[in-house]
């Protein structure tokens, strides 16, 4: 197919060394009307410096309230191929591993029912199938689901959980991120597909405090692997690093945030009581140092983007939880949190915002978590605090 629209501005983005998304759209346009008109519409945006999409309407597949982002152009007459241009969010497998067979199958379905364009992956983690019309949603879903694929989350629902590669290819994974993510996803299928929350709820799971999935910034619940017990040291390997040119004093000792490492040129010592498990020394000397023996996760709550009162990062609500299937302790906690959020949350209020509004102490009390210093960077400043009936002498 030759290109339907002139795209002098977009063509500028075929130049340069980084792979070009314009080339991708043009490749799809070879066989897709959607892609042809997407080029035209996008060129118009580049020219006018304004989006040409309208607010999405409610579209989806039967029985689900989530998984499809409705999208309509505001210039449908000019670009009928993208008059509808809905996105289908397909729940990725944990860890983003694929066989080529599986990927090809998805591609074939999308060539047949959609634009032939994707995002691998969306920021939340889904396989984003980019652009189709309303009537294709059901058949596309039938083809996908019959081959074992399901939709991810959207709207006021559990959003598609995602995780770092973890135990599959990383020596630092303290928890089985892929298993946990899979089990959470399976456990909350209903909550993912049928939005019934005050707002969205995201899970992200990282195997350690390196947080390669950015869970602390982007998940209402961030599950981050950690350990108790002493960092394991292989002194021989430490020496190898030193001989290999690493300046252990500068790069390790002086960069340890808790000043708990010492190195006398032949032995590396760690005062584990003072270690806060930041992962710096381990990451820099992976052959020599390994996380301690007792594995589990720190559970953090609340992160989100800035709207409405400012960005939040998740903060500690459970310092240490064992993480073994069937993960009942986790699910039980999540259920208690949701119940509380459900009861008190306003429309479009994330759980972190609710806690900000009602107070962390109230949350801890209501959800039944014991206050611990690990939950705060520092205690309150101003001596204004509440007491309960039982604290008061009558």
């Amino acid at each position: 197919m030759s290109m339907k629209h002139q795209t002098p501005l977009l063509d500028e983005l075929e130049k340069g060394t980084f792979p070009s998304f314009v080339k991708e759209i043009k490749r799809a346009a070879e066989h897709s009307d959607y892609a042809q008109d997407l080029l035209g519409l996008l060129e118009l945006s580049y020219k006018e410096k304004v989006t040409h999409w309208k607010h999405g309407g409610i579209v989806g597949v039967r029985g689900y309230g989530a998984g499809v982002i409705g999208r309509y152009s505001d210039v449908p007459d000019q670009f009928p191929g993208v008059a509808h241009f809905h996105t289908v969010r397909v729940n990725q497998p944990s860890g983003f591993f694929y066989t080529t067979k599986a990927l090809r199958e998805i591609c074939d379905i999308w060539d047949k029912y959609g634009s032939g364009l994707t995002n691998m992956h969306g920021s939340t983690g889904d396989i984003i199938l980019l652009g189709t019309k309303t009537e294709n949603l059901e058949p596309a879903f039938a083809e996908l689901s019959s081959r074992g694929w399901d939709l991810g989350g959207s709207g006021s629902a559990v959003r598609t959980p995602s995780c770092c590669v973890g135990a599959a290819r990383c020596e630092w994974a303290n928890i089985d991120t892929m298993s946990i993510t899979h089990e959470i996803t399976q456990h909350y299928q209903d909550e993912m597909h049928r939005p019934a929350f005050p707002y969205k709820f995201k899970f992200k799971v990282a195997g350690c405090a390196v947080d390669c999935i950015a869970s602390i910034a982007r998940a209402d619940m961030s599950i981050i692997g950690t350990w108790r017990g002493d960092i394991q040291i292989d002194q021989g390997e430490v020496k190898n690093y030193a001989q290999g040119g690493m300046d252990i004093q500068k790069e390790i000792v002086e960069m340890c945030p808790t000043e708990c490492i010492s190195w006398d040129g032949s032995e590396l010592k760690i005062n584990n009581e003072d270690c806060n498990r930041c992962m710096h020394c381990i990451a820099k000397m992976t052959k020599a140092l390994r996380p301690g023996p007792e594995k589990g996760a720190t559970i953090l709550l609340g992160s989100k983007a800035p709207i409405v009162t400012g960005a939040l990062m998740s903060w500690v609500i459970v310092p240490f939880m064992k993480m073994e299937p069937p993960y009942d302790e986790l699910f039980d906690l999540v259920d208690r949190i949701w119940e509380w959020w459900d009861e008190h949350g306003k429309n479009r209020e994330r759980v972190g915002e609710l806690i900000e509004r009602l107070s962390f102490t109230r949350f801890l009390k209501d959800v039944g978590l014991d206050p611990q210093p690990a939950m705060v960077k520092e205690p309150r400043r101003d001596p204004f605090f509440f007491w309960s009936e039982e604290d008061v002498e009558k």
Partner: protein
Amino acid sequence: MSELPQRQTDIGPPHYEQFLPPVIKKNYGKWKYHEQLGPGHMVHVSESGDKLWTVRVASPRLLSTDTIKDICDIADAHCDGYLRFTTRHNVEFMVDDESKVEPLMKELKDKGFMIGGIGPRISNVVHTQGWVHCHSAATDASGLVKVLMDDLGEYFTTKSLPNRVRLAVACCVNMCGAVHCSDIALVGVHKTPPRIEHDKVKNLCEIPSTIASCPTSAISPDPQNKSVKIKIEKCMYCGNCYSVCPAMPIADPKNDGIAIVIGGKVSNLRSNPKFSKLAVPWLPNTPPRWTETVAAVRKILETYEAGAKKHERLGEWVERIGWEKFFKVTGLEFTLQHVDDFTFARETWRMAATFKW
């Protein structure tokens, strides 16, 4: 369309196990250490002695099925039909024997793939939909990623930096990327308030939730018009009202632009995770190649590269030298917009007599 297969619901994603290369399945949870072998390849070594080589290539994330199939061809030829994507949208090819690495890398190079992104360098840019798919976009995302990475490509493929520099792009302040905790991030911003289309408000918008959407309480009811009104001097153009009420469009081609925020991180290494902070409040939205924005990012990056200690993340460097020094060494202007006047402003004021000249 022919016969459709039987749809299923609530089955969730396929189990990941079926997608794991055999060497991974065997050594799952048994990895001992890894070594970085180059800007784009590394090896993981298992307790069992097994090894896994990974080669990483850049992806524009917006992929045609054709390109995905090309990628699959390579994985079929070299990796027994397995591959993965990273959390930053790169593609990873994995092999279980050293002899397979060179041929794999050769084919990838020959086919024009950009190998790199491992270790202390720039990896792929986490980003969002932009004009490709979102009604809310103040700028495009894919285009910005492209021009940034065209300029900074050498930091992906070869050059190293004091530490990783995580870039992100979000097309509006909803920030679907990881902008609020990135080393350097771009975000599409507005500079003018929404326009209220009173006749449409009635039908399209729920008044109470529209009012509640405003972070600064700038919106109040306008009973006369069965609509709302905005106290203009309170509006800081976040566009959240437009998210909730389509009858309040805020896009303004002349004044929409790009803000640069910097110094965020999510890892816990050394220092705690950090929010990004405002470096440049507004640059003009100049597709297709956004030269002003690209230049500003490069300037910040190079100043970091020159000034930071080994292993120091960008935000760690800035905090060590101080923000006043950051503005001095980068030559960026400090404006009224940099001074926080939002919810937690107080915590950003300099409650100390110490600062650098």
